[in-house]
């Protein structure tokens, strides 16, 4: 449905319609998150149609997976969503363990929660910072990255790498956390808790930010589910669905015994869950939902991510305590040439950007027969097209930024 259609109600009189402009946003562009090409058809400033073109970062991960063993494939999962690499590793490891029916010891499970949630915080910081950058607010970007640097330093101590970790492997993790790591992590968390309200002041409650994001790109719940959107995009539309609660048992057992909330607006009360056990500054309540914001718009998706950071901090605190109280093995990784049993397994995990699924089909050899990565951003990106019809050109980065896409995951 494009604006060239004569029956389009947006066109008042066919004669006075001006010609449409074909514009390319990307693939090299400061604001599309990665190499994404958005072919826009605009009538002046109003976008009539939008078509995303992907594939610029396609590196044939799935074909490569057929030539490597399960453990050898872990670095390739890093490079998919490189901003949340630990969660990618976790997804792949859990899938292989599901196929092998291998259980990770308790300490390893707490380790996985700790690392996964730390990476969720780092990933949401990037999402928040770059979203501000898309809209022209330059400073939150640096504040977010300052905090992220500290997380990356911690990760470097744990596994030696800052971005592509390959830390969580099938069977557990490649190595246990070094001594004193949890203490440093606690120190970071205590310092980070005080800073979270700063981000709200900079962006969430800023009048110009609200003017740019409230009411833009409204995604209805039905459309979100139909388009396969998951993660904060889905929860920002009011759908109560989080795989850490509702997913497969092999994944939800990781979070057994942890207290945290699913961040989703309660349709009856119109409020977000605000229990944070003192993570958010004492006495301060979360910023109010502005009156312009409609459920499912960019502001809500952004807000969901901000609140998820608080819940992740809660989880990190609990997991540090549980990890320290635990003794035993962190989970030795499986053999490099471990033969996978005949069969197939599919498992989705709640990655920071949505539900990331890995599908492994094995014919009994050590190399899988087929590897498939179901990317969360792949489906999230598709919804850009209907959301951006009829908006102004300046809203396109606002919408794409609120969906928080990473091309590495989409193209694999």
């Amino acid at each position, binding site marked *: 449905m494009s604006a060239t259609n004569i029956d389009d109600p947006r066109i008042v009189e066919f004669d006075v319609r001006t010609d449409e402009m074909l514009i390319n946003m990307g693939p090299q562009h400061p604001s599309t998150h990665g190499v994404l090409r958005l072919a826009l058809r605009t009538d002046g400033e109003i976008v009539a149609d939008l078509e995303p073109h992907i594939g610029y970062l396609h590196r044939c991960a799935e074909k490569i997976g057929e030539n490597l063993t399960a453990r050898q494939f872990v670095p390739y999962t890093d490079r998919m969503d490189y901003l949340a690499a630990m969660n990618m590793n976790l997804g792949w490891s859990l899938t292989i363990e599901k196929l092998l029916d291998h259980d990770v010891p308790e300490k390893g499970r707490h380790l996985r929660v700790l690392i996964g949630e730390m990476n969720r915080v780092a990933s949401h910081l990037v999402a928040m910072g770059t979203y501000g950058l898309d*809209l022209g607010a330059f400073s939150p970007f640096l504040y977010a990255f300052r905090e992220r640097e500290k997380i990356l330093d911690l990760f470097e101590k744990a596994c030696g790498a800052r971005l592509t970790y390959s830390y969580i492997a099938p069977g557990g993790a490649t190595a246990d956390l070094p001594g004193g790591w949890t203490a440093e992590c606690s120190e970071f968390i205590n310092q980070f808790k005080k800073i979270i309200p700063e981000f709200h002041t900079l962006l969430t409650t800023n009048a110009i930010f609200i003017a*740019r994001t409230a009411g833009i790109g409204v995604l209805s719940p039905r459309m979100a589910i139909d388009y396969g959107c998951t993660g904060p995009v889905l929860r920002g539309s009011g759908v109560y669905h989080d795989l850490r609660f509702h997913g497969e048992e092999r994944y939800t057992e990781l979070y057994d015994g942890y207290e945290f909330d699913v961040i989703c607006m309660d349709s009856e009360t119109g409020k977000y869950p605000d229990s944070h056990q003192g993570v958010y500054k004492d006495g301060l309540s979360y910023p109010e939902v502005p009156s312009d914001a409609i459920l499912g718009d960019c502001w809500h998706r952004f807000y969901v991510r901000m609140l998820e950071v608080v819940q992740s901090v809660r989880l990190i605190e609990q997991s540090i305590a549980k990890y320290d109280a635990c003794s035993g093995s962190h989970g030795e990784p499986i053999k490099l040439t471990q033969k996978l049993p005949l069969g197939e397994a599919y498992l989705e995990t709640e990655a920071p950007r949505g539900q990331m699924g890995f599908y492994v089909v094995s014919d009994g050899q050590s190399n899988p027969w087929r590897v498939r990565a179901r990317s969360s951003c792949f489906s999230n990106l598709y919804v850009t097209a209907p959301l951006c019809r009829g908006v102004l050109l300046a809203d396109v980065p606002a919408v794409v930024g609120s969906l928080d896409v990473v091309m590495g995951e989409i193209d694999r």
Partner: protein
Amino acid sequence: MAEFFNEYIFGNGPWSWLGYVVAALIACILVIHVVAVGAMGFIWLERKVAGRIQDRLGPTRVGGKFGWLQTLADGIKLIAKEDFTPDVADRFLFKIAPYVAFAASFSAFIALPFADGVVANHVNTAVFFVLAVLGLEVFGVILAGYGSGSKWSLFGAMREAAQVVSYEVPLGMCVVVPVFLCGTMNLTTIGNMQEGFITNWLVFNDPFTFVIAMVYFTCATASVNRAPFDLAEAESELVAGFHTEYSGLRWSLFFMAEYGSMFLVSGLAVILFFGGSNGPIPVGDWLANLLGGVKEGSIGANLPSLGAITVGVIGVANFILKGVIGVIVMIWIRWTFPRLRIDQVMSMCLKYCVPIAAFGFIGAVGWEVLDLPTPNNLDEKSRYEYHEKWSHEYLETQQQTKPAANDRHARQAVPTEAIITTVAVSQNAVEVNGGKQ
């Protein structure tokens, strides 16, 4: 200055025109240097302030610990860059656009007084002149956007044109208020009338003028395309807007034009509302008295007295300081807020700035008409005393009468054809060197 050259070098005969030409050239060079060096300084300042706001340091390597010479290094790099124009560009328009923007921004400084009498050209309708020339900058932007042959540039240029032209309306309305209060468009006069204590500044004249000053600052930020109104160069959407295709020296000209305009509108705000070159407490009198003057008839008889020079320098320093503070506020705002969308920018202009400016104008006028109390003594001062000070007719009359040596209100007479004076004469100059014939 011209008469100085004519007196000592060229003689007053057939070569006297050379004196004026040389004086004009010196004037141009001074103005361009002031603004170019100022732009360099502002770019450095922006990077430092931005760095601090973002919890980092900014340039720290070139030219010592604070990176003073960073902009110079960048300028050298830019000059050394390859100069190319895109294939699809309209060559002539593409090349001329930066110069148009640059010229518009810099020309407005001709009428901007840095202190009492320190101005490149005494323009009696300076306010009008400055606003008019400032509005020419948009031509450069449109030419750049169209001439680049790229859709993105065109988008940026069109947005900018719409924005700048719309914001000139509330800007003009805001500017009319101090003009009305002072009764003159002469910027030097307006600055001088705010002499004395800080309460004399027009911004404290009445609450409406205060609001008008704030609205002026907002509209000024919009008309020079600074964030949050910088969608003409919106990085994240249009790569770089109208100057996407520019690199090297051409791009640096746009940049200098932008920072020049920033200082210009900030300086204009300073003169119109914040006291011009006057400080919060009047030291001019006291200093001039202290430092004294020059004996009449000596070689330096035509030169200003030391007291006058000092007062002039302080005035210039005051003005620049306040202007820089205004620029810092603009920088501060830029690095704090996100960017507004074009329709929000336009609605802000038409739905907020214009009505508020209009109400402020009516309020300020009403305040004066109803003779409500104001903290300054503008009413008591004879406006004509300041009014005609630099006008050509007044200067002519001064030439004919030789003022008494101790006449506090006499002025140092200056030839009417002077194109530039660097003489700072405070209205309380004690020593008068006698009329120059």
